[in-house]
């Protein structure tokens, strides 16, 4: 019998992030306005680094069935913390350049990272909700940082109102699920006769999570919210919230399979994300749900890629790219025929690849954009990479990874998802996704061509941040290093998912 205190090392990465946020917040009033952006980002960065180190030490297990840790969750938390570190650098560079009067954004960034980690670790719907709200509230404030700008207010208002509505939808779904299972545990067995109620609850939860990750048709908020936010925050939102949201969707998907098999996850056990589950039967409701998800995935790809083609603002372009990437990530949910093992390894690999590349791209663009991010449109960004070769080089790496060029982690992610799709027998969708990936690659490379193209007439804005330079350099190396065989999540490489999902 373990005491509850001995369970807490599992929460160490979150606790360290939280402590960093609180320390940053507490130190903020004692620093002179001009020193805030010198010290606070570093305080926050040290906490994030400590949390990353703690990730190597955490065990597999769960705390009270509320939050769990396993190799896939360690990997995803690592992605979140890495993206947070990059975003801290971007935030330092842009807030310092604008002489932003206040250091709270650095603390809020850590609180949002905490929330996203809790979303990843959640194995209980209420625990998930707390994580979602913690991440969302911090991000709402970060979106509205430039409050004197009309577009910032517009983005904040749309995001906040829609976010609140979908939080309510999530809770409504949790209430329905509780009514049908008598428990808020993810994957709890359904009481006899309550399958309809349960399915409705799960559908509402899925809708709310699809909103959080900005998949079609719940993507309408993202171009405005992304454009209203400072460029550095845009990358953070796109990366971190999406990791949290998709981890929750993945956990829900495994839970749906457990219930489809006619079972449930007992209250003292949890679903581990790094294990596969054998799909013994494919009931009609799951088959329908899967088809809906695949249609949404293809439409996300379509809308993301084709709406992105005509955009001039780099932030809007990345917003549509994020919709398209939600499409690829949803494709990883496709189910094989009954009798084979479902594992979501390709989803986790793609998710972290996407998170690092997006946070890196936007931080590099924040570096190149002028005061107040006024010049994030392609006309003003043209040729900026020539003036700033280091930023240009890392930007090239991140965009190459997003486009899915070989020897980057982005390629591995796309390859795993598409080869999984083919292996599961969804050949037509795989070909369609392949074509979309080519269109996507064309527009990322087009962006690069503009950035490296003609000589720029605009002097680059004087951005300064040692943190950003270090984080960008490490992240760019990680894009290559993570491709090294065996460096991916343990047990996540295709071919060895033959472990039961439910484990004590």
């Amino acid at each position: 019998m373990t005491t509850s205190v001995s369970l807490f090392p599992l929460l160490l990465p979150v606790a360290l992030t939280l402590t960093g946020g609180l320390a940053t917040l507490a130190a903020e009033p004692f620093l002179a306005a001009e020193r805030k952006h010198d010290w606070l980002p570093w305080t926050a960065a040290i906490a994030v680094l400590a949390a990353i180190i703690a990730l190597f030490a955490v065990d597999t297990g769960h705390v009270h069935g509320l939050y769990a840790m396993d190799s896939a969750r360690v990997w995803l938390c690592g992605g979140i913390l890495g993206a947070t570190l990059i975003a801290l650098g971007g935030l330092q560079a842009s807030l310092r350049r604008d002489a932003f009067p206040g250091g709270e954004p650095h603390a809020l960034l850590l609180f949002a990272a905490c929330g996203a980690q809790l979303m990843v670790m959640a194995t209980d719907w209420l625990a998930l909700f707390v994580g979602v709200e913690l991440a969302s509230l911090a991000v709402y404030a970060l979106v509205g940082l430039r409050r004197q700008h009309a577009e910032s207010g517009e983005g904040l208002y749309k995001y906040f109102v829609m976010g609140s509505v979908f939080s309510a939808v999530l809770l409504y779904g949790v209430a329905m699920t509780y009514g049908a299972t008598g428990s808020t545990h993810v994957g709890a067995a359904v009481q006899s006769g309550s399958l309809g109620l349960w399915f409705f609850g799960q559908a509402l939860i899925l809708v709310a999570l699809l909103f959080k990750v900005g998949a079609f048709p719940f993507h309408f908020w993202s171009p405005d919210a992304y454009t209203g936010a400072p460029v550095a925050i845009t990358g953070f939102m796109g990366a971190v919230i999406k990791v949290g949201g998709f981890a929750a969707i993945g956990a829900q998907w495994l839970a749906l399979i457990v219930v489809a098999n006619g079972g449930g996850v007992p209250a003292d056990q949890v679903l581990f994300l790094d294990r596969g589950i054998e799909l013994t039967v494919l009931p009609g409701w799951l088959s329908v749900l899967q088809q809906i998800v695949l249609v949404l995935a293809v439409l996300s790809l379509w809308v993301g890629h084709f709406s992105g083609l005509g955009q001039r603002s780099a932030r809007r372009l990345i917003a549509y790219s994020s919709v398209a990437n939600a499409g690829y990530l949803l494709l990883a949910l496709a189910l094989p025929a009954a009798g084979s093992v479902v594992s979501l390894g390709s989803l986790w690999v793609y998710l972290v690849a996407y998170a690092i590349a997006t946070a890196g791209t936007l931080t590099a663009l924040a570096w190149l954009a002028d005061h107040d991010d006024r010049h994030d449109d392609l006309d003003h960004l043209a040729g900026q990479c020539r003036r700033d070769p280091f930023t240009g080089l890392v930007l090239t790496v991140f965009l190459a990874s997003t486009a899915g060029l070989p020897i980057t982690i982005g390629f591995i992610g796309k390859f795993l998802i598409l080869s999984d799709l083919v292996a599961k027998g969804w050949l037509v969708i795989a070909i369609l996704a392949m074509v979309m990936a080519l269109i996507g690659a064309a527009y990322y490379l087009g962006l690069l061509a503009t950035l490296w193209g003609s000589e720029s007439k605009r002097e680059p804005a004087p951005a300064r941040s040692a943190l950003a330079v270090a984080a960008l350099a490490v992240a760019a190396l990680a894009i290559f290093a993570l491709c090294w065989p065996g460096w991916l999540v343990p047990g996540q490489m295709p071919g060895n998912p033959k472990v039961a999902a439910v484990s004590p």
Partner: protein
Amino acid sequence: MLGSLDAIIGPLYFWAFSLVAVCCALGVLTTRHPLHGAVCLIGVLLAMAGLYALLGSPYVAVLQVLVYAGAIMVLMVFVLMVLNQARDDHTPRFDLLSIAGLLLPLGVASVSVNVLAGANALHGPAQGGALEGSVANLAPRLFDTTAAGPGYYLLFELIGVLLLVAIVAAVLLAKRSLAGEPSVTKTEDAAHGH
């Protein structure tokens, strides 16, 4: 004897509270004066509190009155009065978009009613005066820190962080001027000039 009386009075209260809640909710949607809307919303929240009490959760019912119908709505009414929002006779009550928008909640509501009616009741009616949601039942469960407990104390602590983040976010967005940021007051002056 008491049981049979319960069987009559319980549903009576249920229908009364439900009627008040639905009528007040319709009032929120249709009234032209924001203050009337706020008062209707208080009615909805109070009726909900009554429903919670009927379900055997006096604690949630009291919190509903104190926090939602009390604190939050007082704040809302206060804001409405500060902004001095008058009756709005210009905006049409319903336009094409709002009627189209009505279809979605109606659809969700009809599906909800359908699945709820079809589902098996999880618990029977409360037995012999046992209040499942009483403070005496709730507190030990909420603060049970043993390893075998539900661990809700952990969520309780995390909600503390959540409220802190909400305060920081609100201060950051609403502070009249952050140190050395004159542009906000300028835009406000411009807005008053219109």
